[in-house]
């Protein structure tokens, strides 16, 4: 039986230099769910492509 592909639940973009709270990139709210619907599969493909790369540091 084929293995389920799985799904991306969320993406936290960028890094937070602010040492007082969690900074979340909300620029995507400008373009809405459509843009994210395009980006998310690309990130998913990128993750799966990397399966063929050296093993990740897993904790």
């Amino acid at each position, binding site marked *: 039986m084929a293995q389920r592909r799985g*799904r991306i639940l969320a993406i936290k973009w960028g890094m*937070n*230099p602010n040492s007082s709270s969690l900074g979340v*990139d909300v620029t995507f709210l400008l373009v809405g769910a459509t843009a994210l619907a395009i980006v998310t599969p690309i990130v998913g493909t990128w993750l799966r492509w990397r399966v063929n790369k050296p*093993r*990740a540091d897993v904790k």
Partner: protein
Amino acid sequence: MWANARELVRSVRDRIAGARPMRRVRFEQFGAIVQLAWPRALVFVDRAMARRVARSTGEPAAWRGRETELGDTVLSAPLEAHLQLTNQCSAGCTGCYTGASPQGAPHEWGLVEWKRAIDTLASAGVFHLALGGGESAILPWLGELASYARAKGLVPNLTTSGLDGLDSLVQIADRFGQINVSLDGLGATYAAVRGFDGFARADAAIRRLREHKREIGINTVVTRHNFSELDQIFAYAKERRLSEVELLRFKPAGRGARAYDELRCTADQHDRFLPTILAAAKRHRVRVKVDCSYTPMLAHHQPDRALLAELCVYGCTGGDLLIGAKPDGRITACSFAPPPPELVQIGKQQRPRVTELETYWTQPGAFGAFRTWRDDVAEPCASCEYHSLCRGGCKVVSAHVRGDASAPDPECPRVRAIEART
């Protein structure tokens, strides 16, 4: 033009090359968190995708229970740790949330202790550090600590006022993932918010850092004095070719507790916050980040809830997605919160240190009200469709205004409106 094109090509090439060794996976009950170096992101995936990405042969310990939804349970460790390396700072800002002073705090840790803290955080699986102060740029060992964090697999990021320690910071800027300079207004507004005229020096620091590094942004604490200037702040960021503007809500902590009534935004400004910043970000094509305490103000405009969840927009994330540490190493739910009370289970008289994170994290009652929002929810939050994301809003504001950290955020537009009717 050709110089810009060459810089772009070099940047893309370096990022792809740099992405290869930098990839970590941390298993969680819902699946896993995958850290990507490029694009710079933490990707939350379910168990099925985690199996493919991590190529895990066995079932990790985190998967012993049933597969949960993201947000149903506390993470196995924070995503990021906010380390207040020192409380030394000569700026004397009116609203400083740490109450920083030139003398600093008693019993501040040094390089050796913070390296131990990084060992603990790396062992726990923390991804990012946000280093701040006080003014951490004045610390002679900041560069060594940043390198140590990198070697342990954590990405150090930094906030600086840009007012002190700039010469040494420029030399070590490449060790940080992102550096943001605090800029709470332009020209005279800077002085109105901070209590002294430091704009020219902060601007000079931003220019100089940007000459050496692409990932330079600004942190702006939004107050009633600079709200009307937000568009100009985005224009400034564009003009200086900065990578982002991060907007922070004014918190009643440190000296900020006394200045809170004078500086906090008005209800009308909070209501207009989201459309104002999105319009500015669009007009000037600058990325915008907001801090977790702004989630009630985002929810006020009823954005797609699923979209917020996919963007990892959460309200209070203290003691879960993030932790803080005071200059003496005491652990906090977030940088604005006081250290939590000691726990009997740990059997120690002193409050837990960040080096005890792994022991403290799983203790019943750890982080107090910051962890009990799932069970302690009352109206009007209980009937709010965004509660699982918002988590009741900013607990530091609630504790200051209501005397109860678990009370609904009094500045939430929905809470305000409902309470006004009753």
